[in-house]
């Protein structure tokens, strides 16, 4: 592909078309770009709600003893933080926002295969969100986001609402996944071969398969818990012949693949950003594409590593331990390929690239600490300590969260046609990165020394770690507020904040950067003819061969 822009026909863009930015038209739109923006608003709002809950927990843990949240209140805040962050933020974040916005454009389509179903997925999301909030109004839930039986079956708290919420949100992600798979197969430009798809498309494609195949299992599991509550069918109730451990298996059969639903899209974003800001063809395209599929496949077979201490045959534990070690291989393949891509590239330090660096650093720490837990003997020592909390925040927040913000900075100019203030963005990034490590790294050490997770109180000897961690939470929150302020500011106060974005500010080669910023409602009037890979940049001094830099890709 070249980096040349498609002809701008001067059409009105998707934001101003059809009633403009704040009209009710949006609620019945089937335009994938508008649906993406509607997801964006909801998801960012919920992120800040859950972040506030996290700050409350950290503030409570500043000192030993009870400050302002007693044990019961702390459990409710903890559950809500987990449910919102996982179900309403991380899982839908990149696939629903950037998958919806960029994937159809990247494959040369004007929309997804089932636009009305796409809108329906958004309404499923909203319905799930309403139920989740309703459960707060109904007194909150104290089970933790995993809803483990027998406690979730016995507690007086209203677990029905959040479980129904999780069920609906699951359907939202299944339907989005179904749409993405079909779009890639059916609406990809006829001249775009599988090996010419941008790696972001590969990542979302693999993610969608996991979402479609794994989510129904947790759906039915939660339904079975509800059957126990309403009808007294004790499938997981030991006093009625059931087995609570079976619940854990069925829960993690989905929820472990779900962590790959969360992280694969983030890796997919890194695979877009690294070559663009190195202006160099991606190293090992096929390995990155196949490693996404490998992660999706092996990642479906490692669920029981969440249950090493729950009671399981030794043979089972050894097999799951081995598979857990094994699943780290394709992730490492990706990291090495990104590093090799940067080697001898012309690297530009822009905000998306900084977040990609942060991803590689933070996710590697998260990944290595994951391997420590995969080792059975070590896991028994660190199970249920704050080491685990630090580990999954490094992978989920340091991985997916970081790339969510990276993707915001990367696609923002395309989505809204506005470029943010880069200096302010850099300050925000430094606060984010420093704050992140200050917040979570001490929890590794405290955990190794025996600090249990989910505790509202602790012994005085852990105070130093907790204090440091709480200070970190204030730093990272400041960084994130700056980030959002910057993005809103460049839209709201356009005269003196930021600038108008060009069609291709990053000199990227994928199709999304060749349509106007922001794109018109129908981005393609002609079939885009793909003659080359998505990372072949027109850079004469890097010795691009002339035949590849054909002047007009799009035949009139």
């Amino acid at each position, binding site marked *: 592909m070249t980096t040349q822009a498609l002809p701008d026909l001067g059409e009105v863009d998707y934001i101003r078309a059809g009633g403009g930015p704040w009209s009710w038209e949006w609620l019945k739109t089937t335009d994938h770009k508008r649906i993406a923006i509607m997801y964006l608003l909801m998801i960012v709002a919920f992120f800040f709600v859950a972040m506030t809950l996290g700050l409350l927990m950290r503030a409570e843990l500043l000192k030993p003893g009870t400050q302002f949240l007693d044990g019961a209140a702390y459990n409710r805040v903890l559950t809500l933080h987990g449910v919102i962050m996982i179900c309403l933020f991380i899982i839908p974040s990149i696939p629903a926002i950037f998958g919806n916005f960029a994937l159809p454009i990247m494959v040369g389509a004007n929309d997804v295969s089932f636009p009305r179903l796409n809108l329906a997925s958004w309404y499923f999301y909203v319905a799930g969100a309403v139920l989740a909030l309703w459960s707060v109004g109904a007194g909150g839930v104290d089970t933790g986001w995993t809803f483990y039986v027998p406690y979730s079956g016995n507690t007086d708290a209203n677990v029905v609402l959040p479980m129904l919420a999780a069920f609906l949100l699951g359907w939202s992600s299944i339907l989005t996944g179904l749409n993405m798979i079909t779009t890639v197969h059916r609406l990809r430009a006829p001249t775009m071969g599988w090996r010419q798809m941008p790696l972001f498309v590969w990542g979302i494609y693999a993610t969608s398969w996991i979402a479609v195949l794994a989510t*129904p299992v947790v759906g*039915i599991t939660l339904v079975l818990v509800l*059957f126990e509550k309403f009808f007294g069918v004790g499938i997981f109730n030991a006093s*009625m*012949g059931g087995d609570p451990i079976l619940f854990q298996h069925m829960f993690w059969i989905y929820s472990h693949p779900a962590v790959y639903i969360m992280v694969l899209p983030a890796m997919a974003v890194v695979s877009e950003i690294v070559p663009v800001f190195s202006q160099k063809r991606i190293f090992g395209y096929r390995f990155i594409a196949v490693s996404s599929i490998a992660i999706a496949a092996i990642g479906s077979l490692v669920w029981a590593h969440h249950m090493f201490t729950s009671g399981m045959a030794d043979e089972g534990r050894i097999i799951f331990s081995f598979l857990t070690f094994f699943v780290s291989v394709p992730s490492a393949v990706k990291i090495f390929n990104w590093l090799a891509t940067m080697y001898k590239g012309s690297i530009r330090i822009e905000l998306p690239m900084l977040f990609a660096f942060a991803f590689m650093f933070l996710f590697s720490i998260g990944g290595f600490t994951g391997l420590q837990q995969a080792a059975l003997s070590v896991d028994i020592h660190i199970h249920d300590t704050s080491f685990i909390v630090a580990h999954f925040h490094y992978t989920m927040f340091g991985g997916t969260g970081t790339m969510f913000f990276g993707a915001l900075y990367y696609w923002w100019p395309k989505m809204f046609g506005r470029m943010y203030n880069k200096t302010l963005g850099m300050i925000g990034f430094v606060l984010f990165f420093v704050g992140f490590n200050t917040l979570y790294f001490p929890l590794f050490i405290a955990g190794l020394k025996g600090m249990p997770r989910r505790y509202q109180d602790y012994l005085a000897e852990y105070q130093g770690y907790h204090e440091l961690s709480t200070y970190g939470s204030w730093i990272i929150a400041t960084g994130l507020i700056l980030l959002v302020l910057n993005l809103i500011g460049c839209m709201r106060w356009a005269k003196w904040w930021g600038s108008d974005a060009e069609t291709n500010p990053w000199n990227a080669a994928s199709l999304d950067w060749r349509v106007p910023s922001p794109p018109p409602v129908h981005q393609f009037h002609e079939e885009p003819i793909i003659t080359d890979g998505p990372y072949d940049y027109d850079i004469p001094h890097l010795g691009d061969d002339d035949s590849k830099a054909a002047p007009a890709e799009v035949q009139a």
Partner: protein
Amino acid sequence: MSNAAAHDDHHAHYGVPGYDPVAWKMGMWLFLFTELLLFGAVFIAYAVYLETYTWHFTVGSAQLSIPIGTFNTLVLLTSSLTMALSIAALQRGKKELSIKLLDMTVACAGLFCVVKAFEWGAKFEHGIYPGSEHLLAMARGEQMFFGLYFTMTGIHALHVIIGAALILWVRARIKSGAVSTERITFLDNIGLYWHLVDLIWIFLFPLIYLVA
């Protein structure tokens, strides 16, 4: 520019999702995968407890009526046949026949549900229903068997009802001409769903009725 605009009009529908039978079928198959995995999870639970409580499952299963189960199996198999014939009829342009065959399919679905309701009702009369004192007094393995019996046949019956509703919907669309010989994919997809509902029963029947 005007030239280009005229050209654009010609290609105005490039890349816009329209009637694409392959995409619709693909979407339907993906949805069917989710259904299979949903039931698959319950089948796993069944397998685990069959292994744990083999004897009690035999005792529980012996209390179910094999003739009734067999009759319902035949009813569902017949409904799958009429569904397939209905699609074949519409493919050949025989709209009236297609609608008639759909009516027969819905009738079979109704018959299945009525028989199922009587079967459940008979169990209820014997005091066997989830949470009943009689059931709680039984051995744990038998409680689990009947728990799974009501759960699995209940979720399946719900699918039969949803399937029947979908058939009535596609029937209305055939009548209005929205689904026709040329645009038959919607009927095809409902047919796929119906065969899945049938197929799941084919697995449920031996697991629940014949395991004794």
